[in-house]
C-alpha cells in the first residue's frame, strides 16, 4: 500500500481544472462526494449515485454517446468499478473521443468499514484498462504524475483512463440530494432545457 499516498481532495481539482467544462457521472460514496464538493452540491453538470453499484461507467458511456459535442467524465472508485469491470471492455470497443474515466483508487471499501479492496492487495486497474483496450491510460500515484494526466483530461480527443491512487483519507463531507429523479431533472433541465 506504499504507493497510495496522494490526497484525493487535493489532486482531483488539479485533474479536473474547470469542472463546468464537463458533464460528469460519479459512482456512489466517495467519488459522489468528491464531485459534489468540486461542482457544488447543487451543481447541474453532474449526476451522482448512492447505489446501483457498477453503473457509473456505463451510465456515463450512454451520456457520452448521446452528447458527442460535450466532454463527459466518469469519476468512480475502485470498488464500484470492479463490480462491473467488464464495462471497460465496452468502453474500449465504443471508444468515444469525448469520454474519459477517472478511477479514484484508495485500495479500500471506504464506506463499509475500510476493508482492503482487491486493488489494495494485488489488482492493478490501469493494467486492466489497458487490457480492455483503452488506448490512453495514465497512473497518477505521485505529484509528478499529475500534470501529464491533467493535460490528457483537458485535451480529451480520445477515450482515456486515469488511475488515481490516493490514501484512505475520507472524502469531503458534503450534503447532496439523494433523490435520483430530482437530480435527473436538474441535470436534464440544464443540459437539454427540458425535464
Amino acid at each position, binding site marked *: 500500500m506504499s504507493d497510495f499516498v496522494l490526497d484525493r481532495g487535493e489532486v482531483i481539482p488539479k485533474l479536473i481544472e474547470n469542472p463546468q467544462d464537463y458533464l460528469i457521472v460519479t459512482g456512489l460514496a466517495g467519488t459522489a462526494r468528491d464531485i459534489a464538493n468540486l461542482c457544488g452540491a447543487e451543481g447541474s453538470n453532474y449526476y451522482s449515485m448512492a*447505489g446501483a453499484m457498477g453503473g457509473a461507467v456505463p451510465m456515463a458511456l*450512454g451520456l457520452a454517446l448521446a452528447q458527442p459535442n460535450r466532454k463527459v467524465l466518469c469519476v468512480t472508485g475502485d470498488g464500484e468499478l470492479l463490480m462491473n469491470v467488464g464495462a471497460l471492455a465496452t468502453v474500449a470497443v465504443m471508444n468515444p473521443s469525448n469520454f474519459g474515466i477517472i478511477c479514484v483508487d484508495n485500495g479500500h471499501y471506504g464506506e463499509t468499514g475500510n476493508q482492503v479492496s482487491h486493488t489494495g492487495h494485488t489488482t492493478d486497474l490501469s493494467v486492466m484498462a489497458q487490457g480492455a483496450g483503452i488506448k490512453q491510460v495514465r497512473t497518477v500515484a505521485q505529484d509528478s504524475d499529475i500534470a501529464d494526466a491533467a493535460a490528457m483530461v483537458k485535451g480529451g480527443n480520445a477515450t482515456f483512463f486515469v488511475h488515481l491512487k490516493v490514501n484512505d483519507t475520507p472524502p469531503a463531507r458534503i450534503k447532496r440530494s439523494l433523490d435520483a429523479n430530482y437530480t435527473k431533472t436538474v441535470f436534464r433541465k440544464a443540459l437539454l432545457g427540458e425535464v
Partner: protein
Amino acid sequence: MPFDIPAPPPGDPTWPYALYKLLKDAGVTQFSYVPDAGHRVLIDLSLADPDVHSIPLTSEEEGVAMAAGANLGGEKHVLLMQSSGAGNCINMLSLPRLGKFPFLTILSMRGDFGEGNPWQMPMGKSVQPVLEACDVVCLRVEKPEEVIPTVDAALTMAFQSQESVAVLLSQKLIGAKKFA
C-alpha cells in the same frame, strides 16, 4: 443519406425488420445487447446502420445504466437480451426505478415453450416474476402480428410514462432451439 432497412430474405420472418423500423421511427439511437440468436436481425441491422450506436455489452446490467445515461443526454436506448440476462440486471434496475428513467428492454425467451436445454429452464421460469418484483412492466408476445403493437405500446409506456418495460418474445414466436 438515411439507412435503408433491407428487405427480409425470402422465407424469413418479416417482424424483426418491421420492429427495427418501429424502434428507429420512435427515435431510438442506442441499441445495446449481449448477443442472442433471437435478436440476430436487430443486432445485425444496428451494426449496419451508421445512424445509430450498436453497443456490445459484457453484461446486461451495463445496458440498464447506459439507458439512464442516454436519457440524461436526450437520446433513447433499447437493451436487447436473452431472458437469462434479466438476472444480471436486478440491482441496476433500481436506477431507472428510483430515477424514473425511461427503460425499454426486449428479451428473447429461452426456457419456456419447447425448451430442450435444462440449463435454460430456471431463469426462463423466473424472468417474469423477478422482473415484476422489480417494478418492471412485462408484456409477453407469442404471435408475429402482436410484435409491433406490443413494442409500440412499450415505447409509449417507457418514454412517455417513464416506466421500466420489458417485452418478452416467447419461444412460440421465435422458435425453440433444437438440441439433439
